[in-house]
């Protein structure tokens, strides 16, 4: 919204609507035309609405409880305090444990890291097999996989509980990692299959003529050529797994609860006085990891969800 003086401020509206029809190509700059005021005004108001909750979280988490009780949630803190953050991290209680969200944070790390790596490894090999080494019936499995992505998780949860229990890993982190690998598979396999299919086939053929096998081509040719898509997959998985709640609550024991589950238990616990500042600090802490991933990754995140969106 630069403030260069409008060239013809007079018949602003009529000209503006006309101008709106030609958003493409060069035209004289009229920064303060009615059209621009409307356009940027609307966008700014919308942006404010989207930013509001983040702002409220930040200011609430930095106020003391007396100030919260007296003031309004939108006012900036008079006295900035970081005590709620410390408390949320190290002292907030869930049930009998009063060691704060840090426990959930480390659980989430221990869940997210192996789940992300394993799900991507498995799915990329799947995608590679589907793209370059298609065998009879492969497409059938792939179709089931993609259709399965639309089945509500609730339908498949209990059978998985039984399978994991039979394997003796129900309630463990290993079990949860497997669950994340399973449910990440449709979208990731699709992502990798499409990407590997788009690579020039000559490359693959040349490697085959040189005598390279399945794994050799995968590790020495496909993998090094596909780093961007691996990054996209990682963004998708890290945010997705970190934000998961349902699988965490169903497939783990309380001592392994991920951060989202613990956060919900802290904030929605019925005992004790509600400390809204601590709650908001805890909420921000839980949202911090995916937010950082989002802000750092920028366009790659958009690419990831776009890839996730065009399934089917």
């Amino acid at each position, binding site marked *: 919204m630069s403030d260069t003086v409008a060239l013809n401020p007079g018949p602003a509206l009529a000209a503006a609507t006309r101008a709106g029809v030609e*958003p493409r190509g060069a035209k004289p700059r009229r920064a303060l035309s009615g059209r621009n005021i409307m356009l940027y005004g609307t*966008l700014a108001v919308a942006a404010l609405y989207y930013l509001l*909750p983040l702002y409220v979280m930040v200011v609430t988490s930095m106020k003391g409880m007396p100030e919260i009780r007296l003031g309004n949630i939108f006012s900036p803190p008079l006295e900035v305090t970081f005590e709620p953050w410390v408390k949320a991290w190290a002292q907030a209680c869930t049930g009998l444990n009063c060691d704060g969200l840090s426990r959930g944070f480390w659980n989430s790390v221990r869940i997210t890291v192996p789940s992300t790596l394993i799900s991507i490894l498995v799915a990329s090999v799947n995608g590679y097999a589907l793209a370059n080494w298609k065998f009879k019936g492969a497409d059938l499995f792939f179709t089931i996989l993609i259709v399965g992505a639309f089945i509500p998780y*609730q339908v498949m949860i209990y059978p998985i509980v039984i399978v994991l229990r039979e394997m003796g890993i129900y309630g463990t982190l290993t079990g949860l990692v497997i669950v994340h690998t399973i449910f990440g598979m449709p979208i990731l396999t699709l992502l990798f299959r499409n990407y590997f299919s788009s690579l020039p086939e000559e490359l693959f053929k040349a490697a085959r003529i040189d005598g390279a096998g399945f794994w050799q081509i995968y590790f020495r040719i496909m993998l090094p050529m596909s780093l961007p898509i691996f990054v996209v997959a990682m963004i998708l998985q890290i*945010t997705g797994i970190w934000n998961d709640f349902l699988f965490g609550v169903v497939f783990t024991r309380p001592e392994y609860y991920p951060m*989202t589950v613990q956060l919900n238990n802290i904030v929605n616990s019925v005992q004790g006085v509600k400390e809204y500042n601590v709650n908001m600090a805890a909420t921000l802490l839980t949202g911090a990891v995916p937010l950082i991933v989002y802000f750092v990754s920028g366009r790659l995140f958009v690419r990831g969800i776009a890839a996730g969106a065009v399934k089917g």
Partner: protein
Amino acid sequence: MTGQAHTGRPSKLLRNLSSKIASIPMMLTAVVIFLGGTIWTVVYSFTNSKLLPRAKFVGFDQYERLWDAPRWIVSIQNLAIYGAFTLVFSLVIGFLLAALMDQKIRFENTFRTIFLYPFALSFIVTGLVWQWILNPEFGVQSVVRSLGWTSFTFDPLYNADIVIYGVLIAGLWQGTGLVMCLLLAGLRGIDEDIWKASRVDGIPMWKTYLFIVIPMMRPVFITTLVIIASGIVKVYDLVVAQTSGGPGIASEVPAKYVYDYMFQAQNLGQGFAASTMMLVTVAIIIVPWAYLEFGGRKRV
């Protein structure tokens, strides 16, 4: 570890062996979990399983009980309201934002980052923030009252009649950015010549959008619709965090019904029946779409 293709003429099963071995996780997931698990749940929804699954079949008993349960009826109504409003509003708002973003604006990346960041947050975080903002004692209601409008009432989370709209506000905040992104990608796919032609003909911009661009974007809209819809059916964490289904049972949703009956009330049969109903709902959305999208293409 060895590529099998170069060993003369191997038997059919051994051909492409590495690829088959590598695909075992995919085959297992597809067949055992997705297909097998779904069939298993549907079959066991016809049993009277309580604490443990038991293969004692009782016909449609569980379904009759399900549709007699007030909580299930409320859940379905909520899903219908939440779903209808989410579809309409996220498409309308998402499209408006996308259209605004498509005007060759400055700071496009900044605006996109702002509109999309809620999508990176979990439903738990979203639900808790909006629980706080909508808190009548401290949130929007109290702020407006302190400005002088003392009779102002806005307490959706504590009013059973409108609680689902409180959830809707949070859900829209989280999800419209994604819709905007998808539709913006669709808008960018429209040929510039279309715009030039409509400009030459002197058609106003809004008419171009309404009668030319939107119909051209039909596939994008349908894909977006399917994505939103399959997300709606799954809505669970948002309600758990924001209202825990309350006040009373006023904001219950089917996914929560399933979880509670399976893992809390130890009434597996009910849980299976409810989850099968969810599956049916999704099938009603997906099957016509899949038919249009893929069935049609094959025939052409």
